[in-house]
């Protein structure tokens, strides 16, 4: 190869050309240099440390989430020992401070239901008595909210009457003095009547009625909430537009933002969690950006995590079930918290304790949790 062709070859690869003391002997030499590729020679900068300033890239949001208070104390005309306020968020999680910590409600069912052993082991004695079950949650596991699920009212299960179900609600309200969530069976034909009677039985206690959806008589349930001073859970299935529509319906019957919490559906870790995660993030972002129809707290039926086979199956090849199962539920809760969720309906005391302890550490004011950052030497 001649020197020239080597030069041309080299030029093709080069990013910069620096020529020094060269002599070109040629009849005619044509060098085409595109102006774009002429760069000033980069000077080698001497290594140097200069202090850089950092300003937190905080976002100023236009909107905020309304706070929803659950549980009426004596002062507010109820019999609860404390009330809990959820929501009120002003930023996305961990950008800057939000006013409320996530709240957790313990699930209680109005009849004995099959439960995986890592959950059942905590409740063996009380599975047939919802009042005792609720008491155990509060006294032993420190529950500051409980959900009573009136699943026995389903015509396909026990078809318990609305009146009997209301009696159960009264029993549980009597047994524990924490704010309460009242859930139906999920049967769209029966739930309106069951939840109406339950709302009446719990009048003045400011419970959360769980839930209304597009495919049942939401007017009947919504009005019962209004008449008896309760908040309502607006349940849709991973669809923001439906969530907006349902919320609008609820507004139109007179419920306010302060009376509504949204449940956009929780899919378990490993089985669609990402849909719930992104739906919640999108709802919260829309709320902060000013969408009036979505400026309410978000709730999660985190217990659904136990529907994942990695949670409910003993499967020894997947390691200690008594750790894996609860961790499955706790990780589901943790990730949804980071997506903006405010209220968690959970079932396993081990999961709840783990989740709550992480929340405490992460939202405490103490700046120094551990002072030894030399993890290499530990």
């Amino acid at each position: 190869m001649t020197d020239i062709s080597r030069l041309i070859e080299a030029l093709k690869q080069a990013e910069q050309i620096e020529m020094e003391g060269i002599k070109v002997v040629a009849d005619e030499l044509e060098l085409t240099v595109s102006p774009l590729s002429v760069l000033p020679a980069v000077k080698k900068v001497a290594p140097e440390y200069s202090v850089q300033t950092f300003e937190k890239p905080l976002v100023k949001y236009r909107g905020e989430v309304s706070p929803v208070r659950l549980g009426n104390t004596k002062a507010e005309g109820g019999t609860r020992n404390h009330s809990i306020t959820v929501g009120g968020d002003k930023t996305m999680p961990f950008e800057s401070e939000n006013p409320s910590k996530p709240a957790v409600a313990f699930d209680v069912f109005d009849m004995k239901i099959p439960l995986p052993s890592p959950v059942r082991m905590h409740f063996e004695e009380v599975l047939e008595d919802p009042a005792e079950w609720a008491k155990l949650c509060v006294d032993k596991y420190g529950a500051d909210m409980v959900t009573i699920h009136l699943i026995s009212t389903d015509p396909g299960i026990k078809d318990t009457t609305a009146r009997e179900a209301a009696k159960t609600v009264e029993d549980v309200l009597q047994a524990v003095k924490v704010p309460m969530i009242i859930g139906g069976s999920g049967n769209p034909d029966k739930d309106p009547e069951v939840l109406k009677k339950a709302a009446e039985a719990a009048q003045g206690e400011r419970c959360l009625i769980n839930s209304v959806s597009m495919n049942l008589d939401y007017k009947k349930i919504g009005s019962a909430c209004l008449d008896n001073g309760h908040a309502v859970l607006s349940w849709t299935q991973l669809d923001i537009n439906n969530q907006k529509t349902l919320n609008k319906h609820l507004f139109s019957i007179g419920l306010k933002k302060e009376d509504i919490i949204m449940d956009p559906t929780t899919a378990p870790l490993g089985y669609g969690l990402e849909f719930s995660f992104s739906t919640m993030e999108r709802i919260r972002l829309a709320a902060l950006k000013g969408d009036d129809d979505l400026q309410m707290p978000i709730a999660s039926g985190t217990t659904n995590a136990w529907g994942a086979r990695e949670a409910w199956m003993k499967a020894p090849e997947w390691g200690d079930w008594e750790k894996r199962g609860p961790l499955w539920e706790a990780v589901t809760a943790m990730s949804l918290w980071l997506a903006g969720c405010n209220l968690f309906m959970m079932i396993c005391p081990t999961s709840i304790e783990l989740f709550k302890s992480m929340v405490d550490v992460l939202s405490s004011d103490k700046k120094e949790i551990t002072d030894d950052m030399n993890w290499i030497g530990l």
Partner: protein
Amino acid sequence: MRKKVGSLDIYKYLPKINCKKCGEKTCMAFGSQLIERKVELKDCPHLKRESLKSLEEILAPAVREVVFGELPVSIGGEEVLYRHELTYFNQTAIAIDIHDEMGKEELSKRIKFVNNFSHERIGETLTLQAIAIRNRSGDAAKFEKCVEETAKRTKKALILCSWNFEALNKALEIIGHKKPLIYAATKDTWKEVGGLAVKYNCPVAVFADNDISELKSVVNALQRMGIDDIVVDPGSRLGPCTLQLFVMLRRSAMDEDKVLNRPILGVPAAVYLQGGNGLKEAMAASLMMAKYADLIILHNIEIWALLPILTLRQNLYTDPRRPVRVEAGIKEFGSPDENSPVLLTTNFALTYYTVASDIESAKVDCYLIVLDTDGIGVEAAVAGRQLSASRVKKAIDETGIGKKVRHKKMAIPGLAARISGELEQLCGWKILIGPNDSSDIGKFIEGRWKA
């Protein structure tokens, strides 16, 4: 916020000749695929150098991509703060720690564990990416020996963790050519450690404890040395600050901060080692992954803890652009005949793929009716009436399953048990209640179906 790149911004640098050599019909189409990161610049044979440079600049991800390791691991390269805005690209790499005072047996057990770990989950093989070697002793010779031993036994990417420059130096003399990640350059050691990164052409992690200004200053100093492959560690305290630092770092990258646009390293192992346990470590790992860690170092290798962590990673990095529903209709598994079982599931993609993979692994010949439930899973669809007796009847009629089999017997998901009575009346088929979880389909067919 970072300006969104439009296809016109790209198009003007493309050859505009629609030669189709890239596999796309037009240059315009190629441009929009570039934005979606579904094709690469090198797929276009006609790009001029200047255009290539401009395009590289325009298309550079908000977070720089860093590659390290003998079996290369890519981290960073992210474009968005929230996954629904596009997708997350490079899964959080997971490293397991070992140290230079560990007994031989334990060391070899942990290395083997990382090498061999693999878990099949819904069509994906989940693995571990790296080993982090800690210079626990603080002694350079001990570290060198441990690094040498480890490198002999694994091809997994390595992270060399030491505060001692001499230890890093010795280790790099041996394995510098394997492109390990060097941990860490600090305010005090950046010049020496940066020098090693230059000499061995290895990426380097910067550590500054809970102080982003300091972190930024060190990264800036390294940049001035000509180092581009930098990972940042703002300190992994299990406190309120860590997570906020992660969020601020990632937001800075999206705001086009050209110093802090780096992959983030989180160390859940620090949570474990500072008097925590496997449960807390797994929770810390989860929250770091959900909020932007591109690389994490774990201590606990119990499978009960790794499963949820790996599963969460799989979930977060699932491409949200992928459809949620599969086509409704009849699917055949194996070679079914007129006596084969008929099963029912929903057209929610996740449910369908789970059921399909369970049927395949059970090696059952059967028909599966995929019901259009608007892409909703079984339990929720029963509650929301997308899985109702009338819809199933409609599917039976429309799919013509009655002509494919001689029996009139169908198994529905256990979680849809409550519609069985109404369904039997409505369609006149015998309805069996299948297992609650499709992993039991094999057992169910052998037992209850045949009984």
